[in-house]
Structures are given as C-alpha cells and as structure tokens.
C-alpha cells in the first residue's frame, strides 16, 4: 500500500514511533525523566560531576605540590603563576584548593557511608522489627539528639584528637539519630505493602526480606538522604576544621585552608575568598542535586 505523505501523517507517525519506545517504565527511569526536566538539579549534577573530575585529576590540575613551601613567594596576591595567590608559607593556594576537593569529597563519602552503616542500619532494624526493638533504639537516639549534632561531633573529636579517621568517627556518631530516623521512616513506608506480607508468608528470612525487598524499594528515598548527607558532612567537616576541632594541618581541607588565612583577613582577603567560594559552590551544588532527586523520586513531597 502506498504511503500517504502529508505533514499531518508524518506528525502522527513520528508520535507513534516515539510511543513505541520502551514501554517498561521503572520507578528509577521515571525519576530520571523528572530529574532531567529540572534545570536547577541538572546544574547541581553538572557541578558535582566537575568537582569529582577535579578530585580525580587533582595531581594533573594543580601546578604545585599542595604542601611545598616557598619562602621566596610568601603572601603573593593572585597572579597568572599563582591563580589564587600564595599563603604565609608561600604555598600555592590554587593547588591547595584543588587537592582540597579531593580530600573533602573523599572524607565526606567516608562519613556518609559510615553513617549509613551505623545509624542507617539501626533505623532499618528499628523500622522493620517495630515494637520493643524500635522503641529501645529510637529512645536511645532521642538521647543522642538532645545535643546539637555539630556539638556532639566536636566533643568526640575533642576526645579522639584531630585527624581523618577521628573526624569520620565523630560525624558518623553524631549523625546516628538523624540517619536512624530517616531510614526508619523510609522502611516504614515500604513495610505496609502487600509484597512484604507475601514474602513473609512464603517464609523468606528476615534478612532476605530486608535486603532484597525492602531496601530496593526504599532506595529512592535513601539516595536522597545519601546525597543530602554528603553536603552535611562537608559542611560539618569544614566548620569544625575552621575552628580547629577536626582535621590537622597540613591536610589541604577547605576549612583548614580558611583557618590558615584567618589572621590575614584584613591584609590578604584573597587567601580566604577562594576556599570560601569553593565550599559555597560545593555545598550548594550537592543540595541542588539532592533537592532535584527528592522531587524526582517523590513528587508528592513537593
């Protein structure tokens, strides 16, 4: 049969062709579709991607060693050679900020993973088992929550001392109540579903139910918390390092770089400006991305 070629027919054909595309739509593909339509979320994602690239290729990007001191070039204002200037030890601030990306992102990742494996797991257990287990876990979490999170983290670092593992432990510990509460809520939303009941009815083990039925179904919400907590840990880490309770020099963490420049805020403000901007951009990007993820995975929350 000869095909009729009119603009209207073409339009209809095109539409049909588009409709024939993958008929399967999983929750995550739906979420990605919604995410793609959200310009601010995409900006966040792009910035985060750039930051990850900077972190990976830090040795190639940074023109100097981040801890190499050069007393001939102390406190130089930004120039072509030293894009962000140099500090009081003649260290290149641009290189320090670039390496700082690597340190900040990796430490934040460690903190977040640790927080999920401690507080998150507690929340999942509390949410799944309910009853007395739930009550005991959540009451203990309430006790933890009586002190502001950052204060708890600082108290722990005070005891353990400054350093990366200590900081990760402190942030993990301090975030336990929030993590537990969030993950518990995520599990509770899935728990009432029929498929959980049928999984129980056919005699699956509890571990199996949690791992292969509950977590995959709650994973959208958990991803939101994961990305959100990356930003929170960068925020806490830099705040704590800045006031001297967190990481130890010469780690090129952004908060510590700011702490180094503290004394020169009036004479050499550029020493603080660039690391400060970097923290701002990073935290904001992670939040934009996290916010986009939340709208994407859970449109009802908007």
């Amino acid at each position, binding site marked *: 049969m000869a095909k009729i070629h009119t603009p209207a027919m073409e339009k209809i054909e095109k539409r049909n062709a588009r409709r024939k595309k993958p008929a399967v739509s999983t929750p995550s593909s739906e979420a990605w579709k919604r995410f793609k339509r959200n310009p601010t979320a995409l900006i966040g994602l792009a910035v985060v991607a750039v930051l990850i690239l900077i972190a990976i290729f830090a040795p190639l990007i940074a023109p100097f060693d981040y801890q190499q001191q050069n007393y001939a070039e102390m406190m130089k204002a930004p120039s072509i050679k030293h894009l962000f200037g140099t500090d009081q030890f003649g260290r290149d601030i641009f290189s320090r900020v670039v390496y700082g990306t690597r340190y900040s992102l990796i430490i934040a990742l460690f903190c977040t993973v640790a927080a999920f494996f401690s507080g998150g797991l507690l929340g999942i257990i509390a949410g799944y088992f309910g009853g007395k287990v739930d009550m005991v876990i959540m009451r203990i979490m309430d006790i933890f929550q009586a002190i502001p999170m950052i204060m708890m983290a600082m108290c722990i670092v005070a*005891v353990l001392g400054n350093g990366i593992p200590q900081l990760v432990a402190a942030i993990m510990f301090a975030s336990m109540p929030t993590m537990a509460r969030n993950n518990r809520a995520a599990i509770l939303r899935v728990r009432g579903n029929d498929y959980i009941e049928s999984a129980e009815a056919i005699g699956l083990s509890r571990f199996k139910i949690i791992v292969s039925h509950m977590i995959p179904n709650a994973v959208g919400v958990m991803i939101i918390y994961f990305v959100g907590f990356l930003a929170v840990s960068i925020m806490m880490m830099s705040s704590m390092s800045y006031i001297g309770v967190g990481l130890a020099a010469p780690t090129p963490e952004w908060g510590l770089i700011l702490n180094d420049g503290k004394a020169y805020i009036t004479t050499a403000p550029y020493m603080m400006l660039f690391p400060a901007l970097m923290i701002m951009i990073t935290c904001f990007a992670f939040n934009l991305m996290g916010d986009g993820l939340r709208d994407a995975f859970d449109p009802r*929350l908007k």
Partner: protein
Amino acid sequence: MVKYIIKRLLLLIPILLGVSAIIFALKTVTPGDPARQILGNDATEEQVEAKRQELGLNDPVIVQYVRYIAGVVHGDFGTSYRTGEPVLSEIAPRLLTSAKITLGAVAIGAFLGILLGILSALKKYTWVDSVVLVISMFFQSVPEFVVALVLIMIFAVKLHVLPATGIDTPLGYIMPMLCVGLSSVAGYTRITRSSMLEVLGEDYIRTARAKGQTENNITYHHALRNAMIPVAQSVGTSLGNSIGGGMVLETVFGVPGVGKYIVDSITQRNYPSVLGGALIIAIALTVINLIVDISFVMIDPRLKTTIISGSARKKAKKAQAAA
C-alpha cells in the same frame, strides 16, 4: 496537662543520664592525665598524685559517674580544670549572650522564612517560587561560618560599618544573628509554603471567597493564621540547629557565649566544662521545646489532642527532616 508536663520533665532524666554517660565514656578512653594538665609539667609526681586523689580520679569510672550525677542533681555541674571555678557560674552569664543571639536569629529566620513562604505559596510554580526556593536553599546549604567570613570581608574589612568581632557595641550582634538566621530561612519557607498551599485548599477559604472577602483579607486573616500552626511548631526543632550553628559562629565572631565557652574548653581539653556545657544545653533545649509545645496548646486548644498524643510534633519533625 500537669500530668503531661511532669511526663515530659521526667524524660529529662534519661536524656541527662545518657548524655553524661556518653561523654564520660569518651573521657575515660582519652589519653592524658587531667591532674598533670592542671598542674603543668613542672609539678612533681607526688603533687600530681595528690591532685588525682583530690579530684577523685583514682576511683573507678562508675563511682566518678555516680558522684557527678549526684552533683548535677544538686546543681553542681563540676569544676573547670582551668580556672577552678564551678562550671555553672562560668556558663550562667554566657547563657544570656547566647540566648540573645539565638532569639535574634530565630526572629530573623522565622520572619524572612514566613514572608518568603507566603510569597512562594501565592506565586506557586512561577519563577518567583523557584527563585525564592533556590536563594533560601543557598543559605541553608552553605556553612554558616563561610557566610560569616564573606559578611566580615564585606561589612567589616571593606565598608567598615560593622565590627568584625566582639559584642562591645550592639552592632556586633547583627552579623552573628544574621548568619544563624539566614541558615534557618529555608526550613521556615518550605513549611510555610506547603502549609499555606494546604490551607488555601480548605473549605473555609472557599467560603470566605464566596462571601466576597478581598484576596488580601483571605490570605492574611483566614489562611495565614491557620497555616502558621505547623510553622510555629517547627521553631522548637530548628532551635537545636540554631544553637549548634551559634556555637561555631560565636567562635568566628569572638562572642563570649556558651558556644565559644564549649569550643574553647574542647581545645583546652577541659572536660568538666565540656560536659557541663553539653548538659546545660541539653537541658535548655528540652525545656524550651516543652515551653514551645505548652504555649501552643494555650494559644490553640485544638492542638491539645495532637500535641499531647505526640503526633503533631512528629509531623512537624518529619516536615523539618524533609526540608
């Protein structure tokens, strides 16, 4: 009501026991000898030993813990290693300073947040809505101390209009309050927005429209008043964050508040002060939350059932966590 208040106050006991147990446990695993620290490196072994005996450091941890708790019950939060003064009398004058900053911050945050929340609810899904959300989120996501540094660079270093540190003049309060306040704007904006949208869909709003009320009247008298309830309840939950943020900012701005006291004590490894400070903040937070809840029941008796059974608080908390 009285029964409820007593029940809530009784909850303080496990909280205080728990908080002090955590810090006590941490303290015992810390290397270093507080007695040596107080006396300095010049002291002889005998002097240090005598000091240890005096401080009761040779007793088992559990005995020290029970002794400390007994002291707290009598209003004794320990003695600062550094000054030898009771922790409570060192903190008391600082509480007022911190309270001023926290109150100012909550006022700024709530005012701006509610205003922006109304704006974005009325202009929902327009560019105004998105801009408001993005800006308020910016201040929520960026650490307060970075905002503080930028403000110092602008207003103290460049323009010389505000002091960079200290609260010798009332002007010194402006930047700390602003920094803490701005970070809580986003939370209030979100809650106000969603609560306004919910209320605007209620039947009584339609009724008000049907009887010919002006839009302004509907927004500010009929809708806002009812939409404010969850917002007001979230004040209590956001207080904790404001106090935490205040701790860092007091250090940045050199404000002699409780936060700076605790941070200083942490860096000096002055544990009685850290522990006492943490306990006092925990007590203050719990009591403030209780007062907030009770005052809402006074204002709006409808809340009696929800607050006292606890579901409304959980809802507010959930909303806060989601924000």
